[in-house]
């Protein structure tokens, strides 16, 4: 049953990567929660919420690709053995704590400190998940897995800077 698999993938990650439908359900839940949060923040109507959902589907897909690419490159440089599919799956599965951001935002309305602590915890959980899943999929020791994550973030940021500078370079240089 999918609920069993969801539970295992969330709370027993050591059992291995879950089947594809479980990852998809997990990601869809995350996107729904994030789009609800965005719609609340922007006072959007139902149509607005749907707009946010489509936008996050698109943006989330692109972001997922870039983060996975950076993670995979770093993992390979550090001696990782996992395939691209493994990295894509590990990245997608690691993001599930973002589903708790709805509750974190609600906590923010009760106490800003509690909400911030909750949000910090969620982000930390995502990072731990990513490091752990990269170590698992690519059979990396944990120090290398941490380096892999850190390097991937730097790489992704550099790619973003490059994306801004390249068009400028071409536009101004031509």
């Amino acid at each position: 049953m999918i609920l069993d698999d969801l539970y295992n993938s969330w709370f027993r990650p050591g059992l291995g990567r879950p089947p594809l439908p479980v990852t998809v359900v997990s990601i869809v839940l995350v996107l729904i929660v994030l789009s609800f949060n965005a719609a609340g923040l922007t006072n959007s109507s139902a149509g607005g919420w749907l707009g946010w959902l489509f936008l996050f589907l698109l943006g989330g897909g692109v972001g997922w690709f870039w983060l996975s690419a950076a993670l995979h490159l770093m993992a390979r440089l550090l001696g990782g053995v996992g395939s691209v599919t493994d990295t894509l799956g590990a990245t997608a599965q690691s993001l599930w704590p973002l589903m708790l951001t709805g509750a974190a935002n609600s906590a923010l309305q009760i106490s800003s400190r509690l909400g911030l602590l909750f949000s910090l915890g969620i982000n930390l959980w995502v990072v731990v998940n990513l490091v752990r899943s990269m170590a698992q999929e690519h059979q990396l020791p944990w120090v290398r897995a941490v380096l892999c994550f850190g390097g991937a973030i730097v790489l992704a940021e550099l790619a973003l800077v490059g994306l801004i500078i390249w068009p400028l370079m071409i536009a101004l240089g031509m």
Partner: protein
Amino acid sequence: MLRQDRLIALALIAICLLAALGNWLGNVPVQRPKPVVRTGDGAADVALIPISGVITFAGESNPLGRGATAGAQTIMRAVRRAERDGVKAILLHINSPGGSAAAAQAIFAELMRVRQKGKVKIVAAMADAAASGGYYVAAAADHIVANPSTVTGSIGVIVRVQNLTDLFKKVGVQTVTIKSGKFKDIASVYRPITSSETDLLKTFVNQSYQQFFEAILRGRQGKITRRELEQVADGRILTGTAALDAKLVDSLGNYYDAVDKVKELTGLKTEPVIRNYLAPDWRESLQELLSLSLDQWFPERQLNHLMYWNKIPLALME
């Protein structure tokens, strides 16, 4: 029986979704003493009703939120809801060049009904423009605040009839009209207008103008005389400053000055809690979501809107 793992997973999903849904549907907490605009349920002192764009009965919603044009039906429902909730005042934030005579008239009548009961004060704050139909609606307020440069006035009715016969001849279009009565195809673009049609339209325009004129006199009773109104009700547009001189508005200022006026009229000692009554509540959001059609995302919808306007010969606009 569900196993414990399944129950935990299910509960987690439900809690996360419910919390996020709650963030969306009831997000902004009540704050005092700053004036706040709320969108969720709860008690408010002032009902904010923004009237933006062309005023029609149909209105038009935007796929990323309501508010492309002002729908009279939605505005009237908001007025009723505000009255039922027992607000102390209604704050109209008008930014409209006008619209259909019937829609503006319907909103005016609804506001006057509430005003005449004397329990709810109505203040209108004009933004870029509150002309023609926009002014029609504003006239129902106890107090009108305009920015010095607001475009207002344009008290009048207009019917435009085009004759495209020469153009159709050039492109080879011929039209045959079969009608049950001589006036059934009045304002047709396929032939020149006749003198009897001109007379009929003149009567139509004059009647509508007279209704508009009398409504303003009724709304601004004791503030402007018939003679004074006749001098400016010739279709001219005025700046906010000129409108103050002409007694069409009561004071100059911005939205926050209008909020201060609300406080003064209602005798509120603290900053009022303002709730946007045009922001959809959860039932309307759900209804909107279920009735959302993909044609809203495509340019054809704009075409439909234009066709809708072509079918309304009478407009209080510009």
